[in-house]
Each structure stands twice: as structure tokens, then as C-alpha cells.
């Protein structure tokens, strides 16, 4: 148990080992640890960001869906209104057409009646003249009484 130059040898060995450790062992391991730490941190941050974005997207989707529903309801409402309008219009048109046809038929009837009356009047006049001619035979001057007969016929 004596102190000798082993002391110096051990110190030098120690210094060399420390130098080697400091130069070749410590930095790569610590770098790897640091890199991994950073990667994990990045990964967690990315996951957080992803979750956030997903939330936003879900919210946006819900909004879009709601908007679409509102729009659809609006369109349906408009369509119903339009349908009612078209029905009303059609009804009005049909009524107008009906009225027109009715009026035309009435006018025709009127015209027919008028013509029949005219015909009848002419025939009655002729009949009256013929009758009077038969009754009066000679005395009756067709020319002198034609005026009178005409007047009578008009009264019919």
C-alpha cells in the first residue's frame, strides 16, 4: 500500500477516458435524446393541431348542413307558393274561357232567335197578305194595302 507513479498513470488514464467520453460518447447520445424529444413534441403538437382542425371541420360541416336545410325549406316553400299560384292562374284562365264560351253561345242563340223571328215575320206577312187576298179577293188592291200590311207585319 505504497504511493508511487501509479498515481500519475491513473490520472493520465482518467483524463484520456474523460476526453474520449466527452468527444465521442456523450454528444451522439445526448443529440439522439434531444432529437427524439423534439420529434415527440412535434408529433404531439401535430396531433393537437389535427384535432383542432378536425373540430373546426366538424363545426363547418354542421353549419353547412344547417344552411342546406334552411335553403331546402325555403325552396320547398317557394315551390308550394308557386304551385298554388299556378293553380289559381289555371282556375282563373278556365273561368275566363268558360265565360267567353258561354257568352259566345248566348250571342249565337240570340242571333238564331232573331233570324227565326225575322223569317217568321216575313212569313206571317206573306200569310196575312195571302189570307187577306183570299178574304177580300178583288177589292183588295195589293198595292194600296201593302203599306198597311207591312205595318201590321212589323208589329208582330
Amino acid at each position, binding site marked *: *500500500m*505504497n*504511493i*508511487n*507513479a*501509479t*498515481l*500519475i*498513470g*491513473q*490520472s493520465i*488514464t*482518467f*483524463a484520456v*477516458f*474523460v476526453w*474520449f*467520453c*466527452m468527444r*465521442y*460518447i*456523450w*454528444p*451522439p*447520445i*445526448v*443529440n*439522439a*435524446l434531444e*432529437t*427524439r424529444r423534439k*420529434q415527440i413534441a412535434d408529433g404531439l403538437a401535430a396531433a393537437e393541431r389535427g384535432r383542432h382542425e378536425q373540430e373546426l371541420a366538424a363545426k363547418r360541416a354542421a353549419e353547412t348542413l344547417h344552411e342546406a336545410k334552411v335553403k331546402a325549406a325555403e325552396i320547398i316553400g317557394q315551390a308550394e307558393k308557386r304551385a298554388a299560384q299556378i293553380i289559381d292562374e289555371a282556375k282563373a284562365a278556365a273561368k275566363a274561357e268558360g265565360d267567353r264560351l258561354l257568352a259566345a253561345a248566348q250571342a249565337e242563340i240570340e242571333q238564331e232567335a232573331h233570324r227565326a223571328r225575322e223569317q217568321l215575320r216575313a212569313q206571317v206577312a206573306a200569310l196575312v197578305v195571302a189570307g187577306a187576298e183570299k178574304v177580300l179577293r178583288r177589292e183588295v188592291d195589293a198595292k194600296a194595302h201593302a203599306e198597311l200590311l207591312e205595318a201590321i207585319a212589323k208589329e208582330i
Partner: protein
Amino acid sequence: MAGEAHTSADYIRHHLQNLAFGQRPDGTWGLAHSPEEAQAMGFWSLHLDTLGVSIVLGVLFLYLFRKAAVNATAGVPGPWQNFVEWVVEFIDTSVRGSFSGGRNLLIAPLALTIFIWIFLLNLMDLVPIDWIPGLMSALGLPYFKLVPTTDPNATFGMSIAVFLLVLYYSFKIKGVGGFAAELALHPFGKWGMPANLFLELINLIAKPVSLALRLFGNLYAGEMIFILIALLFSAGIGWGVMAGFLQLGWAIFHILIITLQAFIFMTLTIVYLDMAHQEHH
């Protein structure tokens, strides 16, 4: 057992003698074959066993950790990389907790080297104490002490290296004047300068001495108890069985000691270097 032909005292002495290499009294260089011969070699001799074991273990540590460092990826780590990372993070946390001197790229690798190296050196204490010396005598080496940390040369070698770093950073951070002022002006102010100097110098010298002696003392005592337990094996069957249990118990307890001593050496190194970085006011 190596002690069969000797007395107990010889057995113990044999186990406590390092393999010394130096100049023998007759002027030739070679191995010392007795403690007296080793003593006579003086300062300029080497403990080949201490240096050899610590270099082999140190290189083993560097090789294994270098392997992990080369293959280190930020992706999924393999089992070995995982273990190395666990150790590195443990050291890094310790350094961050104890060292406040700002960014110093030396401290953490220094702490890692100290911790693992001393742990491995201490771990040799758990190898049954007659195996390696027995093997080495078979190879023709007269002595072999397997645990370098039971050689004060090894522990003082490390603590002196740490002490030099403490001095280096004290001068670098505080300047010659600042460091001298720290030594001379505390704790009694400038009128108690001699007393201050005396106290502070003792304080300074105590750092490497206590660092080395704590580690040496713990491991030396542990080794000593292993040797004494080993002596029991030759004292009959009953003692032998008891010695077996004792050795097992002491070895298990020693796992705690060797780790703890490595950790203490590392932590105190960090603390001393931290103190060297701090300006006193």
C-alpha cells in the same frame, strides 16, 4: 486456496499486495516478489494490476458506450441503447441538479466517466477474491490485486485529476485575484487573513483527500472483510458453511456500497466543480 501453505497473516498480506513493477535494489527493472521489495522500489514504480484492470475496464466502458453512441438513433432504441440512454439521462439529471455554473460541456461526460468507471472498478470486488490472484499465480505473477479502488494510487489519481480541474476552473472563472481573495478573505474578513488562508487551504486540500480516501476506505474495508470471510473457509466445515452465507450477504450488501460510492464520488466531483464556478461575494 492461495493461503494453504501460509499463515493467515501471510494470506492477508498476499492479498493486500499490488503487483509492483520498478527498479529492484540490484538495479534491474522487474516485478517485486515481496512487499518489502515493492516498498524499496520507491515512487518510480507502477502497480501493473491497478493500471491494467482499470484500463481494461475503462476501455470496456468506452467501447460499450461508444457502440451505443455510434448506433444512437432518435427512433426506437434497442435494449442496449435504452440502457445507455437511461444512464446518460440519470447522469444528466444529477449534473443539472447539482451544477449551476452555466454551460460546461465537460462536466456531464466527466460525471458519466467517473460513475461508470468507478462502478466497474468497484464491481471487481464481487469477484471471489481468490480467483484472479490464483489464476495470476498460475501464470507466474507473484501478486495480483483485482480491485483498483482498493489501491490508494487509483483513487488519489482520480481525485487529483478532479482537483486539478477544480483549480483550473477556479482560476479561469474567478481569476487569480478572485481565487486568492476567496482563499484569503473568508470567513473572517481581511483582518483575519492568516486564519482565513489556513482554513481555506485546509478546506481546499481536504476535497481531493476526502474524495480519494472515502472511496479507498470503503472499498478497502469491504475487500478486507471478504478476505477475512475467506479465511473462515479453511477453519472447518461449520465455519465454512457460515462463511458461505456471510460472503453471500456481504456481497449483496456490497452491491449497494459499490454503487453508492461511485455515485458519491461523481456527485462530490460535480459539487466541487460547481463551487469552483461560483463567485463568492
